């Protein structure tokens, strides 16, 4: 890109998901991380595809969308820098059940699910650390979903 300074290097360990994590899991995973930049409108994940990576968003905005057969797609949440996306690879069947689309230019680090899974299986303490970080994210999404379900504004 002309005249635009090269983007800063994305460091896995500095993402809030790993921040302050004990031990050397971030350092161990860092070599596996692949940097990706999505332009506006690019799909990060597609419903039904094999869930093959764990995405750490550093900057930008991603819309999580539900596709319904007879209706226009609905965005149920947007995620920004500092957030993570994609854990279906941890659970059978390892398939995405949402679409995720960049609604702004988005930069991420992505960890390939297969290698991540192998590592976490091999080192239970890594696995535990990882799940301890992941659980609050899932809990918060569940919480938000419940509140959206209550349709508070609809009353």
């Amino acid at each position, binding site marked *: 890109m002309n005249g635009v300074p090269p983007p800063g290097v994305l460091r896995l360990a500095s993402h809030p998901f790993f921040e302050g994590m004990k031990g050397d899991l971030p350092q161990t995973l860092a070599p596996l991380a692949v940097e990706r930049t999505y332009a506006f409108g690019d799909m990060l994940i597609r419903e039904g595809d094999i869930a093959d990576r764990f995405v750490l968003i550093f900057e930008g905005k991603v819309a999580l969308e539900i596709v319904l057969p007879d209706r226009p797609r*609905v965005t149920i949440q*947007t995620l920004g820098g500092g957030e993570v996306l994609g854990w279906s690879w941890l659970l059978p069947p390892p398939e995405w059940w949402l679409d995720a689309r960049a*609604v702004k230019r988005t930069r991420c680090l992505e960890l390939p699910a297969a290698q991540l899974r192998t590592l976490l299986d091999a080192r239970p303490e890594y696995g535990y650390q990882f799940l301890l970080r992941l659980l609050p994210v899932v809990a918060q999404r569940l919480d938000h979903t419940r509140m959206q379900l209550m349709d*508070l*504004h609809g009353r």
Partner: protein
Amino acid sequence: MAASSMPAGPRDGTGVSPWVPVPFRVEQRAAETADTITIVLTPPKGVPATPFLPGQFNMLYVFGVGEAAISVAGDPAHPEALIHTVRSAGKVSGALSQAALGTTVGVRGPYGTGWPLAAAEGKDVVLVAGGLGLPPLRPVLYELLRHRERYGRIEVIYGARTPKDLVYYNQIQEWRGRTDLRFQTTVDAADREWYGDVGLVTARVPDIRIDPANTIAFLCGPEIMMKFTARALEAKGMTEGSIYVSLERNMKCAIGVCGHCQLGPEFVCRNGPVFLYKDVRRFLSVREL
């Protein structure tokens, strides 16, 4: 520190019973969303405009139908044009949202406590509005912007159900265009036309840039939204002593005698609707109180 207050029902001073509504005229009306309108009311000839504090409400009356408590949503510097944003949710609000230009709407009030603007001076100010929680906060924003130099950073978060449910849409674009405040909007769900945030207002809280030790927050919206937002603000370092909420309960009299609006020992019409979160937090967490 308690919310600021003003004697209720100034019209009592004229010797008229506090139960009697004054017939105001619907001067303007505009649809905000499919079920929400904003009306501008003017007093009858010879009746002076009554000043109100941001956060106060009026009992609006539709002849033959009844009354509803509706927050004043206009600029406190212009009480002669009494602005209310009403969502059609019941018999009275439904009738109010049908009120045609030139017809009459009865007004009793203003009642209740207002947002403590004096306490906000010299501080960062956070306004978080959920759904119809924006109208009661809009008068605050007018005041903050009128005396911008008195306040630190101003962070506004406004969430609605869908983009179609956002009120004051054009005004929001104006506010978002300003550089002396940050106005974030978010919706619970959206279609492809929406490029903004989707998610609860609480998700916007971590992003706000405030000095939590020197910030005041005003929250208005569904009770559960206010509770979770307060929690998110506390996670950012704020305390319950700097967070104010606006509560809503069944109101018939607005003068503290019908008993309906009580939350624990508080009369929401008289000790509220604006409360310091610290003072009501315990009551908000009791089931069926």
